[in-house]
């Protein structure tokens, strides 16, 4: 399980380093001495507290990437230097995240990858900026993460504005292709930053595209009971439901929809739906059938993505976007180290900013960074088809054809 991957603990690596140094002092294995010092990488995630699941998934993805890079001979431009993960826990709190950045900086990390949540990312990027320490934001979708002019902050994945934009574009195309079966929409969103931002953007944009938003319902985290929200959905009879919430609430919501046998033409999430969770598909195959999600996802046509999926599942974990994005963030860092040939902050920041790296396993356009944001980044739209998750949009990455509107009756 996960424990195996996180065996590369800080103390263990330090101990190994000390042992190596001792051997070196005695002078026999000359090769060992020629081995360049490992490059430390801060792997910072909320592995305890409310976000511990996502944090643990994220950490796993980063560690898989580091293991692969080291197995393939390390950073060749730096004499084959190995990457060494220095693990840190933000405990699901921004202030702890910021304190961990200081600790990582003093441990001598070349860069930080993390910290999953937007609120934590705002604190950690700022703390890292004071040291000009390169910080790759793995997820942290809130726009302000990259709009504060920090020159050390890089986000390879898309921000919330881009995701919502793509989500609406995709919905419009899918709907048009099916002969416009959907006109009315109901938004169900969670109350924190991502749900609120998403709902606001949808309310601005959907009417311009000819959709009518019947009602927008905000709910708390956690919400114990979705029965009433479902009652309201039944009363308003929307063509389409757009939920934006965390996994727990998504499960309770779709379960309540199914219990009340709600008939809609589609369930189309933006960020965080069942069509981007193999766990949901496996545990609730009936509720999951035909649901769609616009979210971070991998490019199903790339062999690397499937190999990573395989590896993650062999480690006993579900393959989630947290794993993919962190794997990718480390690979992006490794490429910058290769090109910049330096672990100095300025050189690494410059190499990260000028990256055109395209070996990633994501459904993105050409890599180009503007103010720390990869402008090629975009989400994918996925749908649960035949108990599997297929990419249905953008078409150039598609692995399945959209089934829309969803067949009735369900469940």
């Amino acid at each position, binding site marked *: 399980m*996960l424990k195996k991957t996180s065996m590369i603990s800080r103390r263990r690596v330090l101990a190994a380093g000390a042992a190596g140094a001792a051997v070196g002092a005695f002078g026999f294995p000359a090769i060992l001495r020629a081995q360049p010092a490992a490059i430390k990488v801060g792997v910072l995630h909320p*592995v*305890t*507290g*409310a*976000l*511990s*699941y*996502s*944090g*643990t998934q994220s950490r796993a993805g980063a560690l898989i990437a580091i293991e692969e890079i080291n197995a393939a001979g390390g950073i060749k431009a730096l004499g084959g230097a190995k990457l060494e993960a220095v693990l840190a826990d933000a405990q699901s709190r921004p202030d702890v995240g910021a304190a961990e950045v200081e600790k990582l900086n003093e441990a001598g990390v070349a860069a930080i990858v993390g910290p999953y949540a937007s609120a934590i990312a705002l604190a950690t990027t700022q703390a890292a900026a004071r040291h000009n320490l390169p910080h790759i934001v793995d997820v942290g979708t809130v726009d302000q993460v990259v709009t504060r002019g920090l020159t050390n902050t890089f986000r390879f994945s898309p921000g919330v504005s881009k995701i919502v934009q793509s989500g609406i574009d995709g919905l419009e195309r899918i709907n048009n292709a099916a002969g416009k079966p959907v006109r009315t929409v109901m938004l169900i969103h969670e*109350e924190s930053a991502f749900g609120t931002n998403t709902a606001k953007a949808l309310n601005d944009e959907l009417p311009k595209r000819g959709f009518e938003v019947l009602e927008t*319902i*905000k*709910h*708390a985290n*956690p*919400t*114990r*009971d979705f*029965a*009433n*929200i479902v*009652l*309201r959905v*039944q*009363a308003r009879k929307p063509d389409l439901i757009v939920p934006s919430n965390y*996994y*727990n609430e998504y*499960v*309770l919501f779709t*379960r309540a929809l*199914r*219990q*009340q046998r709600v008939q809609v033409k589609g369930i189309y999430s933006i960020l965080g739906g069942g069509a981007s969770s193999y766990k949901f598909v496996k*545990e*609730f195959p009936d509720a999951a059938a035909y649901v769609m999600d616009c979210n971070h996802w991998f490019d199903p046509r790339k062999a690397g993505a499937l190999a990573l999926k395989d590896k993650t599942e062999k480690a006993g974990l579900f393959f989630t976007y947290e794993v993919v994005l962190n794997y990718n963030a480390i690979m992006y860092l490794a490429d910058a180290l290769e090109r910049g040939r330096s672990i100095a902050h300025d050189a690494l920041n410059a190499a990260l900013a000028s990256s055109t790296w395209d070996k990633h396993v994501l459904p993105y356009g050409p890599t180009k960074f503007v103010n720390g944001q990869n402008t090629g980044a975009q989400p994918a739209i996925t749908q649960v088809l035949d108990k599997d998750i297929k990419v249905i949009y953008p078409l150039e990455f598609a692995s399945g054809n959209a089934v829309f509107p969803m067949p009735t009756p369900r*469940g």
Partner: protein
Amino acid sequence: MLDPVILLPAAINGLTMGAVYALVALGLTLIYGVLHIINFAHGSLLMVGLYGAFFLYQAGGIDPYLSLVLLVPALFGLGYILQWGVIGRASHGSDQNVLLVTLGVSIVIENLALYFFTGDTRTIEAPYAFEMVDIAVARVPLPRLVAFGAALAIAALLWLLMAKTDLGRAIRAVAKERQGARLVGIDVDHIFAMSFGIGTACVGAAAALLLPMFYVSPHVGHVFVLVAFTVVVLGGMGSFIGALLGGLIIGVTESLGGLIFGETFGQLAIFLIFIAILLFRPTGFFGGRPS
């Protein structure tokens, strides 16, 4: 805007959810009423019960309702040992220390769960999870009706226990007058541990009844614990009938408030009621003397 036809089903939803709140609150009101302590570990114990029911179902194929037979005694034992061996001893009987100790215990329990079970959210799909029962104009999921019935039954059992048994009389004596009870030969530490054990056993029952309609994760306790406190205060500390009615009132208020004024207001309403009750009738509807 609002269709009056959905008010009735919403009220029924509120009642059934309120029964769940009452289930969680029954154990708390006993602990609160007897030991006069605010038990920060209550939510974590609910989480322990939920994991127990989950693993019994997943590994042993034991239905959550059947697992009651195992969970209730197991959690009673856990509660007894916790109070007798840890909370009672470490706190030296002072209220502020009880607070710290239960807080420490909850941190330990939650992170043990995180360590052993990871932060993963787990759910079961019981065969009857989608069985619906038509009541008037509402379609109610079967597990909620079961929980509703069980809340009534458990409240009645607890009431019988307190009113008709020697143990109940001893608990009441200790709750009223610790020193006096000690003087007449009651083993106060044992009674404390029994009360904590029974309270925890109630949480075990609540967990088994809750699992088919909810999920479990290391932090799931937080979802219910504040509401449970509200219910306890509303009903009056130590009153089982109060906890039952309090749960139902809170459930319906949350449901109708949320429906009419928006989901956020439903959450707000719980705490506004809480504050109003504390200010105007701090002993709750069925509580005894003020402290």
